[in-house]
């Protein structure tokens, strides 16, 4: 089976950022995303979620370049002020050219 090596960017953050982050994804050129509801704890306010909604996990398969650009935006505009974590993993994608 022919697969393409690509980058999976995973973002976990407070649910309130959903629309804004989906906007950032589109702007950066991501071709798609998968969104899951989740909950979690980290360095900031675990309890907030009760009234402010739980967390979301946003996964997008992108080229390394797009990943880099998104990480830049996140670091600059989101990390200082919101509960959020982001990480990259290497994946092999079927029909990978569709996602670049």
């Amino acid at each position, binding site marked *: 089976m022919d697969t393409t090596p690509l980058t999976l960017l995973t973002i976990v953050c*407070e649910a*309130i950022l959903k629309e804004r982050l989906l906007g950032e994804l589109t702007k950066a050129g991501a071709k798609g995303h998968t969104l899951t509801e989740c909950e979690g704890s980290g360095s900031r*306010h675990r*309890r*907030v979620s*009760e*009234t*402010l*909604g739980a967390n979301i996990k946003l996964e997008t398969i992108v080229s390394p370049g797009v990943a880099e650009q998104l990480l830049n935006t996140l670091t*600059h*505009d*989101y990390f*200082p*002020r*919101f509960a959020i974590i982001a990480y990259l993993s290497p994946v092999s994608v079927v029909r990978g050219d569709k996602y670049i």
Partner: protein
Amino acid sequence: MWDVLQVNLASPLALAFVLGIVSRLLKSELSLPRDLYASLSIYLLLALGLKGGVELSQTSLNALFWPAVVTVGLGLFTPVSAYLVLRRLGRFPIADAAGIAAHYGSVSAVTFIAAQQFVQTMNQPAEGFLPTLLTLLEIPGIQLALAIGAVQMARERAAQHAGQSAAEAPRPMAEVLHEVLTSRSMILMVGGLIIGCLMGEQGYEPVKPFFEGMFKGALTLFLLEMGLAAGARLGDLKSVGLFLLGFGMILPVLHGGLGVLLGHWSGLSIGGAAVLGTMAASASYIAAPPAVRMTLPEANPTYYLTAALAITFPFNIVLGIPLYYQMATLLAAH
């Protein structure tokens, strides 16, 4: 006062709220499913709007005029007074002061409903158009506080350093306004008001068993959940400090008293004035938190959530409502 308080405490609403707090303190696993909570709040807001709309369809604009005017006045005054108290007396940072003020400038729908039920139990039902007033009070409150916060922070930043990143630019006010105006609670309540107005008593009849017959029971379940949420925040009481604790109980009494007074002047009945006072006294914990989180992320959620949910909400539910009612009764007796 004592017998009024007793009536309130023996109501299923207050008791369910207490049960929620107690089970949190007992570390019980009890929790309402997320979708049940959302469903109940949709139901309550829509039912509130519908009922209000049906009654509004039988109200003359005349009767509505002065109450509406004083309500808008309250909507402009309460966020400013809250902000100033927090800034000047409490020495809170701008973001926190504005964030908390947005909560106290807005209205807690559940507290409003509980007040409505209470005055009904006391045989002093409020005017049918009070849900209309609620929507008038809801909108300016959050907006004004957020605007104050944004403007003041921009000024402060400009003073500190010239360069300002895009990220720190305040969100456009139009976006925030759209968010509040089209928020779930707005759509359901205003939409309900309009539907209720259009269909009138006759259209309401067949859906009445659902929207009116179930109302108090559904509210009981909802207050159980509110108790669970408030109970979970009790632990934060220590970290918010004594000032906020006092603030969360004294400001409501001041705002509530002012609301009762203005309500009385504008010609509302005892029940109506008590409910208007309750609205002014209450702090939103549904509409305000996400708006503040989005627009003023620098504000610490622990402050505004704990104040609104774990201090002012229980205070109003248990002591406040009977107190504002008592005030309205005294005023009417003069």
